[in-house]
């Protein structure tokens, strides 16, 4: 499996887009933490040598790197609690980490932090075919859950493209999606409960096997909280029956606007497909030599629409989809005739990221979401931005739920290109917000989109996020500096943007 490695190590010297001047950790204090962790964890549970720390300096977003003070690898829930208690005692930040496949730098270490790797909590504790649930530890890989449930005809629905490697704990932290979320939902719709620890080492359980829980829906807040609120040690997921059949229609369009209208027409016909994805020509041209999926390279856009269910049900839905697509101006249609062919049709979409890595030295993947009707407008704007920044951008798109993944191609070896790619990306995200969308549909804010948060949320809204943060983590030790920008940080970003012309948020106090 080729994991996305969007940026090469060559630009590792770049400063992360934040600094945390208040926090310093003297060598003596660092040593004291390391020694305490060694005493608490079973042998091999603490890494602190520079060469041991190197693999933990970034996640899937390799542009941003920091070396932590130490990495703790607990083997049990009680060891997780001990690590948290020790870090709290020493007032040292904790950055929880799963498989490190995240794409927003959410697991990038804070320079004064202990990285808490959940990789060794990797047991599937129980698969209950009657209750249709699985109780798993956070280090279990996403795909492993479905594999364990398969003998019972069940599976776990969210399927991020990194599902072979990414862990359930990471999925909970990011509220991960996948290509089937329009019909089957995101992580938040498929996790029934979590158990975890606060920074004070207190165990909390949110949600559970029953569908209703008393009190506020803290589970909904914990999911997607990017490691800022608690450390999850056990997850109860919902399993659903595997549909007997899935088939995909592949349609070509000579215009991306027409493809966008076809998506709306499918929804208007009362169909919620299991998957509904789009690629522009730049993307299909990039992936075709790599996967040989048989994509129509003359098409301006390719649409993939999947139906699942009983054979009769699938046949009926595929028939309807075909007629809607024809009426919407599709120039060619193909329906998968076997499971192998279905997977082949999907392979290009699922391999778009590694393919980008083949056609360009580096690429930068964005994750904005827009109301679907704005698709044509956004793609045109992106074309103009390509000219403005002198960089190419290929587009893959979870069309069913409006989630765009523009892949900006650049070469970090050329001076100034990363900077251009970064600004290109930020401009796409600001456009998404302007059109009623969001800066991140499924990859999370992490460190990458922290500045764009200033555009999407007012100071009062960000204050609410900090209120939530403080209710769970009053000391601010869990993954500090991520996901929510401070007022000062947004003011700084605002000043930066004045140079480009308009002031994006004049309501901000200026320091």
């Amino acid at each position, binding site marked *: 499996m080729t994991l996305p490695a969007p940026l090469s190590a060559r630009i590792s010297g770049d400063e992360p887009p934040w600094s945390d001047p208040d926090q310093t950790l003297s060598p003596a204090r660092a040593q004291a933490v390391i020694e305490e962790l060694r005493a608490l964890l079973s042998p091999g549970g603490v890494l602190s040598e520079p060469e041991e720390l190197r693999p933990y300096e970034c996640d899937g977003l390799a542009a941003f790197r920091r070396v932590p003070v130490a990495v703790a690898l607990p083997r049990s829930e009680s060891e997780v609690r001990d690590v948290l208690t020790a870090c709290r005692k020493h007032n040292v930040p904790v950055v929880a980490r799963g498989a490190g496949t995240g794409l927003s730098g959410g697991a990038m270490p804070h320079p004064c932090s202990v990285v808490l790797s959940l990789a060794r909590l990797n047991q599937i504790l129980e698969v209950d075919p009657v209750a249709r649930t699985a109780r798993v530890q956070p280090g279990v890989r996403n795909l492993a859950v479905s594999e364990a449930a398969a003998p019972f005809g069940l599976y776990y629905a969210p399927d991020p493209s990194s599902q072979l490697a990414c862990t359930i704990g990471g999925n909970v932290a990011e509220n991960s999606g996948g290509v089937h979320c329009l019909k089957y939902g995101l992580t938040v719709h498929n996790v029934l409960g979590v158990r975890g620890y606060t920074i004070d080492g207190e165990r909390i359980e949110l949600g559970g096997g029953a569908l209703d829980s008393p009190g*506020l829906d803290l589970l909904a807040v914990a999911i997607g909280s990017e490691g800022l609120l608690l450390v999850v040690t056990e997850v109860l997921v919902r399993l659903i029956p595997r549909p007997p059949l899935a088939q995909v229609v592949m349609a070509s369009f000579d215009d991306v606007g027409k493809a966008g209208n076809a998506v709306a027409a499918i929804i208007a016909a009362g169909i919620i497909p299991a998957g509904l994805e789009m690629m522009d020509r730049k993307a299909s041209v990039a992936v075709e030599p790599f996967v040989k999926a048989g994509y129509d390279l003359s098409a301006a856009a390719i649409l993939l629409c999947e139906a699942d269910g009983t054979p009769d049900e699938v046949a009926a839905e595929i028939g309807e989809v075909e007629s809607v697509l024809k009426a919407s101006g599709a120039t060619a249609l193909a329906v998968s005739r076997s499971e192998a062919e279905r997977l082949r049709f999907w392979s290009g979409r699922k391999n778009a990221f590694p393919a980008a890595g083949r056609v360009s030295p580096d690429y930068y993947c964005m994750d904005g979401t827009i109301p679907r009707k704005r698709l044509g407008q956004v793609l045109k704007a992106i074309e103009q931005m390509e000219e403005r920044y002198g960089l190419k951008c290929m587009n893959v798109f979870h069309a069913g739920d409006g989630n765009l993944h523009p892949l900006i191609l650049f070469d970090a070896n050329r001076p100034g290109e990363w900077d251009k790619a970064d600004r290109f990306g930020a401009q796409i995200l600001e456009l998404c917000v302007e059109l009623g969308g969001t800066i991140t549909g499924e990859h999370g804010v992490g460190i990458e989109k922290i500045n764009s948060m200033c555009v999407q949320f007012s100071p009062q809204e960000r204050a609410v996020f900090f209120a939530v943060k403080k209710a769970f983590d009053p000391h601010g030790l869990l993954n500090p500096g991520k996901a929510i920008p401070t007022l000062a940080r947004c003011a700084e970003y605002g000043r930066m943007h004045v140079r480009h012309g308009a002031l994006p948020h004049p309501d901000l106090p200026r320091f």
Partner: protein
Amino acid sequence: MLQEIRERIVSANRTAAPLRVRGSGTKDFYAEDLVGEVLEVSGHRGIVDYEPTELVITARAGTPLSEIETLLAAQGQFLAFEPPAFGADPTLGGIIAAGLSGPRRMQAGAVRDFVLGAKLLNAEAQELRFGGQVMKNVAGFDVSRLLCGSLGILGVITEVSLKVLPRPRCEETLRLTLSAADAIDVFNRLGSLPLPISAAAWVDGSGWVRLSGAPSAIKAARERIGGDLVDAATAGSFWDRLRHFELPVLQAPALWRVSVPSAAPPLRLSAPVLLDWGGAVRWYVDEAGKDVRAIVAAAGGTALRWRGATTESRFHPLSSAVARIHRRLKERFDPRGIFNRGRLLRGL
């Protein structure tokens, strides 16, 4: 209207005078204490945006459910979480604040699963916006879902965006004669098969199973499940009465609503009077002399005293760690305690 609500909030916050936020008042009987001067919000109403092909509707919180459902029905769409109306016409804000969902919850999801975004007036009467109008959005903590079931203690909900779905092409209902214990067993076994079951309930010796989807899938499911096909009028009336809490068994003067994992074996209480959500919700008439909460907790669930006099809290107690987070959230969202004081948790 919004301006009036704002002024009331500002004034209440100045004097720390509690406000009791009220839409249509269909759920005044529900939850813990009713404290403070009534703040009517039903006047802040109207659809803000609805585009069927985006599968999203945005409406002001005072909009009545009937208005939303009529508009959606004209486009062949609906609110899949089937919020209860309690024989009247609740507001969207009240539906979100109460977080109650109907029979389809077991398959389609709860209110919170359909909330995409919300606007909220905080204690300083500033309107804040969380989430949005798009299907996928992970920017910031999911505060809009946090509002579902919050019973108004975090602020005044002013606008909500919901995901809507196309109405199923076809629906049929089967009735099986069986005991409550057998119903739990049958519902769970059926649940692990790829069948289009959108509701499964039991009452008065009958199990009711609703199938929703493509006609071919429903036909196959009927053959698999057996039982008697119920005529459309009877079936529609049954599911409506179940959804809106109008079944006779739910009119008992003292009732427990118990939420457990659907597959939990029959509890050591007297026989349930109603099962819903495939066995995940079980209703019991008063269980004098039994420690209902302890029995339910041992089965991995919680018990809500739906109706009947009690000096205790109606909701199942929270663990101390979770209660502490509630207190801290309330202190920060509403430092002077003006919003629906004591409605969700006594003393909060």
